């Protein structure tokens, strides 16, 4: 097996085992209802995590994701509830704003050679601050279009439901996987994460790709914000605080190397599901404090980072046999 696949395989195995253990304890967890809720509850996280996967594979990081989700929610709520826009128009505006926002971050990162960590941290404060200036309170969204979308769903055998936002997430994952593994843009993203100097000498359009990566991340964050507003039917400036960190965790647990160059979009899906499983388990248990979620995620993350180190160090090229002398 390719070494880059190993962390992903490990995640998948851990997920299956964890799920089996959970089902043994709470047989109810093996139902399409729980599965459907899994997808619905984690839809916004999953969508944001797809964008994060691209950013991390390219060797960067995007800390503005949670703030963009919050900002988008507020923007949509204000546009529809206060200014009377149709939600679809509000969605389009939000996605456009996010695209510009991401492009600006990508520009700064590439042309000013500022680390993505710093630029997106600034972006996070900007988006969060911007949302709070628009309103300090939660703005409810009441529009029949929201109700229509809420009713859209596929009934699964066994009483479960695949909601509209769950479907959106799945579509985003499939689209993301295609983009990462089957397009030139995707190969450029991996190239940047592998070695950006080599990439540029090989003719990869580094500037354009960098800008596109952060645009993609911000647009997907905005899409996550839309999904989140469908999920909560409100916009709140402090919504989704820290979601960027959950997204990063999901990406890393899903087998993407934090230093860039290796990773899979579908791995992130498994990562998100594993995080969702932990949460669901703790809810089912009922006696555990929800902080246990954080502890378990922390342990998992640590485990995976160590695992990746071991895998990549063990098969580093230095060990290859007859070397040129």
């Amino acid at each position, binding site marked *: 097996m390719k070494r880059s696949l190993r962390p992903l395989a490990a995640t998948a195995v851990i997920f299956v085992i964890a799920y089996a253990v959970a089902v043994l304890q709470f047989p109810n967890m093996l139902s399409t209802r729980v599965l459907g809720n899994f997808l619905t509850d984690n839809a916004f996280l999953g969508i944001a995590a797809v964008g994060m996967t691209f950013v991390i594979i390219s060797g960067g990081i995007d800390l503005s994701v949670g703030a963009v989700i919050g900002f988008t929610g507020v923007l949509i709520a204000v546009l529809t509830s206060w200014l009377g826009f149709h939600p679809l128009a509000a969605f389009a505006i939000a996605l456009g704003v996010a695209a510009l926002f991401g492009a600006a971050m990508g520009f700064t990162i590439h042309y000013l050679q500022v680390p993505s960590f710093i630029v997106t941290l600034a972006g996070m404060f900007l988006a969060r601050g911007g949302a709070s200036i628009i309103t300090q309170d939660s703005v409810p969204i009441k529009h029949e279009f929201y109700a229509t979308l809420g009713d859209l769903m596929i009934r699964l055998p066994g009483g479960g439901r695949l909601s509209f936002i769950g479907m959106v997430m799945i579509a985003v994952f499939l689209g993301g996987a295609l983009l990462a593994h089957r397009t030139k843009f995707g190969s450029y993203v*991996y190239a940047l994460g*592998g070695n950006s100097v*080599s990439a540029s000498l*090989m003719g*990869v*359009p580094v500037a354009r790709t960098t800008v596109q990566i952060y645009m993609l991340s911000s647009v997907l964050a905005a899409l996550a914000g839309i999904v989140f507003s469908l999920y909560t039917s409100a916009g709140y400036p402090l919504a989704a605080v820290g979601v960027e960190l959950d997204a990063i965790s999901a990406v890393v647990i899903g087998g993407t190397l934090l230093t860039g160059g290796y990773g899979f979009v579908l791995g992130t899906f498994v990562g998100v599901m594993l995080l969702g499983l932990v949460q669901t388990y703790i809810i089912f248990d009922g006696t555990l404090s929800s902080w246990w979620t954080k502890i378990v995620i922390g342990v998992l993350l640590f485990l995976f980072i160590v695992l990746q180190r071991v895998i990549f160090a063990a098969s580093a*090229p230095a060990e290859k046999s007859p*070397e*040129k002398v």
Partner: protein
Amino acid sequence: MADSQYVLEARGVIKIFGSHMALDAVDFGLRAGEVHALLGENGAGKSTLIKILTGAYQPDGGQVLVDGQAVTLDNPLHAQTHGIGTVYQEVNLLPNRSVAENLYLGHQPTRFGLVDHRRMERDARVLLTRYGLDLDPGSELGTHSVAVQQIVAIARAVQLSGKVLILDEPTASLDRNEVERLFEVIGDLKRAGLAIIFITHFLDQVFAIADRVTVLRNGRLVDTQQLDALNRTDVVRLMLGKDIAFSGATDLEPENPTTEVLLEFTGYGRRRSVHPFNLTIHKGEVIGVAGLLGSGRTEMARIMFGADPADQGTMRVNGKAATLRSTTDAIALGFGFCPEDRKAEGILGDLSVRENIVIALQGKLGWFKALNRDEQLEIAGKFGESMDIRAASLDMPVKLLSGGNQQKVILSRWLATDPAFLILDEPTRGIDVGAHAEIVRTINRLRDDGMAMVVISSELDEVVAYSSRIVVMRDREMVAELRGKNINPGVIVQAIANNPDEATL
């Protein structure tokens, strides 16, 4: 003013880095169907000129012309669209991606707008057989040897070069067979009318394939000439502006048996790496190591330095038993190791020249006895001068130095620790003739100062010039130890080749 004599031309090109003039009004013209060698000392500006011709750097003055038309090449991709394919000196490609993707990145075959991996890998396999490589194109590039990666880089450039192929020191990490195969490919391309720029420090190779030469010195054009009219001495004179005597062979003294033994390896080896070997090294002795690709020379060096600890045999230092569990142990014993692959193992690109030179010394002193800046500058300055390191300033990041000068920095790093025993793996690779002679001189001087050394080199003339004894490696085994009269290239070649089915790749 279309001047179709040249497919690619530089007119009065100027490049300035900070206050350093890397190229000073250089003219260069490349004709279709010729192999044009670009020569010059380390830091002469060869790579810089290439980068300007391919859009990786923008000139600060002058023009680049393609087919007689002035063009502005914004980036390497743009140059590719003009049919210019390049292997840069420092190109590592993308170790994290598959061989096939490295070959076709940016030009992948698509179907319905999506990359067609299957076709790409099929094409890659066909392409690579032309270079004698039979490997899985889907495998990660980083898992292959430096030589294979170099060939992939060349294959990629050839693939992209509709018109011009530029190779910046492509042969530095290739063995003889691979070089020959590369030359065959170059010959074919030349006959097909491609224009080829070839940079190397191996004059033999220049004479083997080049039609014309252009020589740069300190950023200035010295001359462009037809090669038939020149001999080696002429070329060296053009490069250095003076004659050099390749000294060394003359002051070869017979092995001095009176000095004390420094190191004794008995049955020393590592499973699946190098067969156990016996070797005694005296103070003031240079052991040359010769052997083919994959014969275990580098592995032997790594074992001696504890980089891959031995798992059998014993080692005695000054008569006392010692074990090497890691390189730290080796450094504590006064060992130094200058590795072959300076990019991966030696150079800390973002640190300054000064820091790169003092880092091993600092490691030896321990972090509690930090060298202050002045001390560091003094040490770095001393080596900068004695090794003739061409850098605008000692505080400049090492990655901005020319390839050969980086090699000198690594050598200085180990010399600064004043080691009792120094292992050099291909110390002259990528180094120009002048510095080459300087390094050979340095090795001789260190030997006379009583340092024990093991020097691995593919250049037989060079090994002969400084070795007091030569060990020959074949199939990961030490097969011969030559001394006295037997130290000559003929005997070495025989010892290496003694096996009919010798390793090739």
